[in-house]
């Protein structure tokens, strides 16, 4: 049962990922008085890409071929390290926090390499931008995780999630709020959403993520897109499990598992609502203003950490 | 004659200044208000000189000999400055200013006097802080009476730097209050009263008091022009009109020193000797040392005097720090002597500016020949401030230095002596440039009785105090020394 629950959790994450992206798209469409795509469309798009032929530049080296697989695998492994519906994560262990961040970074690294590989202008531009932002977002992300780890006194993601949800809501408010702010900003930056990157444009001056995958088509593109959606869901899941208090979930029985999936979906959807709301209400920042935003995340993360030291110093 | 009179008179004078319709009436109100204040102050000070401390307003106001010395100073220099201003700003010359600005000047002048009196008279440390902040706010307008670019800049720096400095002092006061309230004792309100704190000094936490004294020294030291917090001072003093410069330099700085002295007494009672004394000596000597090069190479005679104020405030602080009878006595006497001498010098600077239309030392030549009376006063004043024997400043400097030797601070005292010699040389150099030499300008015929009269009085004061200190005043100073040194000291 234990392993089955973990497997279920991992598969749910993979399966739900396109839907979470779809939800934000739909929300945006609704705000612009459009109908937007149906839920099926999100999966149909992926399916279509998997069936198509690929056009690959004859300049491409092995990196170009390896990248989609590395990216997808590392993202999936990262996804399987985080707690989602209450089951023990497949790859959960003490200290998985750091490994988790590095698996995400590994995918990003290959993405940037592959974008350089074919030697197109946009690819280079995109990868340089991605690495710049990544180098700023990653410390902020790590700091936030460490701030939470300091409070929960554990380095395992699932342990952190369970202890944070056991915390009395008011007691933790003072460090949870800045940490939430920091992680939200990082989530938006890492999943390439609006104040940082616009996922629905191919305008050469602004695009970051899209610039890196311009050369890809067919199944490779499908893997990349899917990985990207999973990454977005990873961040939403972390935010949901760390910061939204809920009754303890379990996958002990099928009924409980169903309930857990439903609660999980509700939490993720409410966060997706928030991200979508920000996307609707904000204009994209100019590229050189993005470091300011990430600086804010950084400062919030430090404040969350310092806050715990300060407030704790008295007891 | 009550203390309340002292505080009400400037208030009424300010109010009357608001209401006065014509220039002559305003001038009359302006001067007579200051004169009345001075009269009251003298009467009060010398009548209560022998008696013990007097409390009023529920213990918030305290008149002891230490406060009396400063009240005497404020009232006297305030009167001189008012009379001088009556000729300088209210006169017919082109240095005069229009009625609207005169009115503003008169109002803020009296408010300035009021807040300074409140500083030295308040027993409540919080009220003292409020009053010191009040002096900044009131005098900022006085600094920029003429609305010139440079004076706006000076006033802005003055406002910002002093307000930040004062904020630090408030930090220190909060610490003192915290130390008093946590020291076990729940009389509530009284715990911010200097006299109450002093009697309970043993219950104050030494560590907090040390920290508090550092903050208060930095805060009030900013206001007193102690280095390295003095950077506003030369600007404000050089840009303000001469009567205001005299008041700022002679009295305002001394008022802040009085705040520092009060906290010094408190800190020493709580912590024991050595800590606040050492800090005062350090910052005092530092101020003298910082002022020295600026005095040597100065090109603007009002700034020259401003840096000399930094130097003399440093000397005073060092004297308080040295601590033996001679040190403290010298320091208090020095405050008085410096106030009279420096205000005389600033007044004569008003004259010089009037004659030569420049603040640059290079622009002034042959002062003695151009105007023998003014030249003589300026000559005497500069020699006095540089510390030459027949004048009063020499007496107090000598006393401070002997206090330094008496308390075995040989290094600091030797350093001060060396620096004083350098500063003396600098002053003599500038003086010879300005006073000697051929006449470069026709003498100005426009003599103003008010302004010249003030110079006569000032000259009389600095010479006579150098030769003989009258009995009642001597008693007052001795009483003040007892307050500083503690009853047994």
């Amino acid at each position, binding site marked *: 049962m234990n392993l089955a629950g973990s497997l279920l959790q991992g598969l749910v994450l993979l399966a739900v990922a396109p839907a979470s992206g779809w939800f934000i798209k739909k929300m945006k469409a609704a705000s612009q008085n459009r109908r937007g795509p149906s839920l099926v469309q999100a999966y149909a798009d992926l399916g279509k890409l998997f069936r198509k032929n690929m056009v690959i530049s004859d300049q491409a080296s092995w990196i170009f071929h390896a990248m989609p697989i590395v990216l997808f695998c590392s993202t999936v492994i990262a996804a399987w390290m985080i707690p989602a519906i209450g089951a023990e994560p497949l790859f959960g262990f003490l200290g998985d926090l750091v490994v988790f961040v590095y698996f995400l970074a590994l995918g990003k690294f290959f993405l940037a390499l592959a974008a350089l590989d074919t030697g197109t202008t946009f690819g280079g531009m995109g990868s340089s931008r991605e690495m710049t932002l990544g180098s700023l977002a990653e410390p902020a992300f790590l700091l936030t995780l460490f701030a939470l780890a300091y409070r929960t006194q554990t380095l395992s993601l699932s342990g952190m999630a369970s202890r944070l949800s056991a915390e009395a809501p008011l007691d933790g408010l003072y460090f949870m*709020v800045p940490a939430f702010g920091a992680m939200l900003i990082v989530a938006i930056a890492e999943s390439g959403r609006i104040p940082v990157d616009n996922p629905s444009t191919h305008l050469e001056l602004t695009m970051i993520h899209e610039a890196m995958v311009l050369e890809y088509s067919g199944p490779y593109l499908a893997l990349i897109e899917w990985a990207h959606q999973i990454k977005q869901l990873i961040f939403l899941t972390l935010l949901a499990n760390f910061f939204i208090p809920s009754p303890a979930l379990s996958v002990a029985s099928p009924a409980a598992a169903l309930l857990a999936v439903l609660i999980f979906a509700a939490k993720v959807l409410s966060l997706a609502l928030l991200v979508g709301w920000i996307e609707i209400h904000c204009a994209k920042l100019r590229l050189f203003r993005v470091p300011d935003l990430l600086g804010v995340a950084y400062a919030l993360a*430090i404040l969350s950490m310092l806050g715990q030291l300060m407030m704790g110093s008295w007891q | 004659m009550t203390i309340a009179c002292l505080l009400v008179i400037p208030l009424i004078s300010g109010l009357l200044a608001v209401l006065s319709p014509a220039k002559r009436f305003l001038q009359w109100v302006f001067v007579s208000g200051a004169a009345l204040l001075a009269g009251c102050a003298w009467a009060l000070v010398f009548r209560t000189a022998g008696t013990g401390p007097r409390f009023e307003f529920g213990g918030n106001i305290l008149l002891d000999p230490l406060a009396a010395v400063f009240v005497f100073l404020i009232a006297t220099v305030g009167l001189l400055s008012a009379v001088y201003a009556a000729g300088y700003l209210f006169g017919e010359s082109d240095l005069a200013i229009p009625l609207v600005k005169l009115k503003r000047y008169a109002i803020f002048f009296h408010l300035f006097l009021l807040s300074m009196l409140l500083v030295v008279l308040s027993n409540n440390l919080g009220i003292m802080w409020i009053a010191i902040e009040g002096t900044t706010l009131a005098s900022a307008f006085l600094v920029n009476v003429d609305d010139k670019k440079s004076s706006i800049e000076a006033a802005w720096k003055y406002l910002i730097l002093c307000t930040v400095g004062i904020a630090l002092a408030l930090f220190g006061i909060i610490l003192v209050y915290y130390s008093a309230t946590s020291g076990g004792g729940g009389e509530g309100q009284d715990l911010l009263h200097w006299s109450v704190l002093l009697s309970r000094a043993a219950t104050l936490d030494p560590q907090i008091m040390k920290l508090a004294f550092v903050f208060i020294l930095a805060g009030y030291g900013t206001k007193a022009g102690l280095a390295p917090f003095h950077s506003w001072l030369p600007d404000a003093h050089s840009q303000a009109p001469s009567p205001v410069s005299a008041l700022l330099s002679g009295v305002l700085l001394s008022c802040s020193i009085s705040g520092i002295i009060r906290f010094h007494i408190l800190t020493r009672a709580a912590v024991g000797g050595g800590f606040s004394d050492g800090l005062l000596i350090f910052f005092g000597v530092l101020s003298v040392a910082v002022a020295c090069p600026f005095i040597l190479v100065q090109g603007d005679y009002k700034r020259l005097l401003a840096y000399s104020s930094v130097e003399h405030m440093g000397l005073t602080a060092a004297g308080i720090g040295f601590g033996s009878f001679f040190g403290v006595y010298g320091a208090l006497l020095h405050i008085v002597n410096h106030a009279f001498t420096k205000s005389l010098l600033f007044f004569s600077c008003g004259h010089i500016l009037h004659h030569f239309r420049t603040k640059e030392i290079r622009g002034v030549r042959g002062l003695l020949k151009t105007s023998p009376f003014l030249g003589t006063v300026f000559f005497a004043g500069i020699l006095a401030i540089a510390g030459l024997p027949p004048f009063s400043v020499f007496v107090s400097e000598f006393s401070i230095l002997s206090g330094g030797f008496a308390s075995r601070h040989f290094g600091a005292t030797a350093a001060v002596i060396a620096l004083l010699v350098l500063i003396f040389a600098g002053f003599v150099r500038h003086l010879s440039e300005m006073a000697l030499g051929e006449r470069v300008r026709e003498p100005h015929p426009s003599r103003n009785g008010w302004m010249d009269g003030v110079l006569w009085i000032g000259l009389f004061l600095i010479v006579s105090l150098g030769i003989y200190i009258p009995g009642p005043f001597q008693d007052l100073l001795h009483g003040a020394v007892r307050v500083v040194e503690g009853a047994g000291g």
Partner: protein
Amino acid sequence: MTGAAWMLPALHFVAMLLLVTSLALIVSPQLFACIRFYALHSFLLALITTGTALYHRVPHVLIAAVLTLVLKTIVIPQIFYRMIRRLGIRRDVETYLNIPLSLIFSTLLVFISFYGVGNLRAIKPPLSQEFVSIAVATLFLGMFMMTTRKKALTQVLGLLLIENGLFLLGVTTTFGMPLLVEIGIFFDVLVGAIIMGVFVFKIRGAFEGLDMDQLTMLKG
């Protein structure tokens, strides 16, 4: 003599928001936003003051809370708004440091104040030590703001931030100063803000701008 158990964590939360607001005040690129953040800062300060008064049952602190609310969240920001409208100054704040650098320095200052106060074992205020750290941090941040801003108005905001920090320190260590002193301090702050406002006008008139870079005539 303490109040409900839920109040302390709530106060911690507000204190954290206060810190975040100070940082926001420092990095905010627009003058109007700066003033709004100052108003918010003062509002949170009033909240903490009220909380302290209720938690420790010291009713006279409530008066200080009301004064803070009226004076610093309403009156002084309104004065600033009027001033900006009448001056017609450019709305963006100019600093000597960019935003990430300011943020790094500010967090460093927060850390220093935390560390410094932590080492100061002598201060054991009734309402736990964290507020002292936060008050000192606010003080530092105010000074930081004053030194890195080019415009006269933002310097005044820095000064007010310092004042807020001192107020917080006073309230949380000693339950505020005696009332007479407290009222006097408020009066000083108000008059100070008005007088500095007048000088901002004068600078504007004389220097055709509010940049402090131009105020460098007096030297030596």
